[in-house]
């Protein structure tokens, strides 16, 4: 069976695309799939750092496209998680060295080798975005609960629909306390504007910074709420579509459910 290409995109920068790519890729590999995470941010590569694989890069995606190496040579195997591979971006080139045709060609090769190919799209809607979505079967749009990120995500959703890709939404960095105070958009507010299928909600988590700096995938840390949320998103992508969406901060204890059911508490 051919693998699925999932592009992770957002429009706006700094909303957590790379973290999401690394986490979802690692989580899918932990579920037993053969996964390649591909850094499409040519010239500003980050995914290798987040995965802690920066010192093992020999070849990159530009080398594959220019036939300087094979896909297998460029794919770096993660030593902690079986079946997780990274195809890094080039740090010295710019986005114009890739073309949609070239990306489609290696996408076909990757599909034969892997079950899931997770592509980390750069910010923006220019050439880098075009290259990332050109071969994608599915898309995950990452959005933080703020007005500017929602606006950009909305634009990207429109562009994805124009390419006949139906995207799913991940709302990242939710701060339940701020939402409760009304200082932050709730995921319902975001959904009201974007109105696409929700893939998951990820809470704000300090562990993300630690994980990014140490290169230990977030989903390997059991104490990370964001890591757990990404694992659930991966399970949803991996066939468990009915897995209920957990709302960060919502009280799900037995006593709370009991009082809520009997109308004692809202």
């Amino acid at each position, binding site marked *: 069976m051919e693998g699925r290409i999932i592009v992770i995109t957002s429009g706006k920068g700094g909303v957590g695309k790379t973290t999401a790519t690394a986490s979802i890729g690692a989580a899918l590999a932990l579920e037993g799939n053969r996964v390649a995470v591909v850094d499409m941010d040519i010239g500003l590569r980050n995914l290798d750092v987040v995965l802690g694989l920066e010192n093992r890069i020999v070849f990159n995606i530009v080398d594959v496209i220019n036939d300087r190496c094979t896909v297998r040579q460029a794919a770096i195997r993660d030593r902690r998680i079986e079946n997780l591979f990274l195809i890094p971006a080039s740090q010295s080139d710019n986005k114009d060295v890739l073309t949609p045709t070239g990306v489609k060609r290696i996408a076909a090769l990757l599909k034969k080798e892997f079950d899931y190919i997770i592509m980390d799209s750069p910010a923006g809607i220019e050439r880098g975005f075009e290259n990332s979505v050109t071969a994608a079967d599915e898309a995950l749009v990452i959005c933080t609960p703020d*007005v500017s990120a*929602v*606006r*950009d995500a*909305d*634009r990207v*959703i*429109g*562009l994805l*629909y124009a390419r006949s890709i139906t995207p799913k939404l991940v709302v990242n960095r939710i701060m339940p306390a701020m939402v409760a105070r009304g200082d932050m958009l709730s995921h319902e507010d975001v959904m*009201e*504007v974007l*109105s696409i299928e929700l893939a998951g909600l990820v809470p704000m988590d300090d562990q993300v910074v630690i994980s990014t700096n140490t290169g230990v995938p977030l989903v390997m840390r059991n104490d990370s709420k964001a890591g757990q949320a990404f694992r659930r998103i991966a399970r949803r992508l991996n066939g468990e579509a009915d897995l209920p969406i957990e709302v960060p901060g919502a009280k799900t204890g037995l006593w709370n459910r009991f009082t809520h059911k009997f109308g004692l508490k809202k």
Partner: protein
Amino acid sequence: MILDDDPPAVKLKGVGDGFWITLDPSRPEQLLKDQLVKLFERLKHLAINAKVVIDPGGTEGYDDLIQNLGDFLKTRFDVGIVSKPPKKRQVAVERIRQKDLNRGWTRHRSEVLMLRGRVRSGQKIEAKNHILITGDVNPGAQIMAGGDILIMGRLLGHVHAGYPDNPSAIILALDFRPTQVQIGEYAATGLDDKKTDRVEFASVIKEGITVQDYLGANPFGRLPWPEVV
């Protein structure tokens, strides 16, 4: 000698809550006044505070004469309001109305672009005339129409109705919270973006854009018949 077969220059008729005077404006003013005095003296106290309509026989351009006679009647007989006969509907307007009613609106003059769905950020929709969207307009989306813009959903984007210079256009939305509104050459920003339970619409009133409760203001409820726009 006054000829008896000369038709009277002034006729008086009681209508509803007042009097209707038909006169021949080509006759000298003094003669008209004399005849009026004769008629009004007979009315006695009935003339006091009465509504009087002076009709110069359907002809136009005798406003001064009507004004003079009105003042004369007011001082001499204490009548209330003196006015010209109400204007009849113009022939052209009346013809359109008849056409609308008889044809049952089967022949439309209207051009409406009707869309269904969500207009997202970065998408721009232009319509030559009116536009009707059953769906939402997101922030960052732009709608431009030569006529009215009607949104059956949330309006959060940027809208320009009556483009380029038709200030009679309106913008209506079930949930009216646009980023910016333009009607013809007028623009408005910083509108109250609180969610209300009311259907609101924007129109140009006195050189500025005003947003009102649609059902409260009912802008088209008093039109005499349904118009094709």
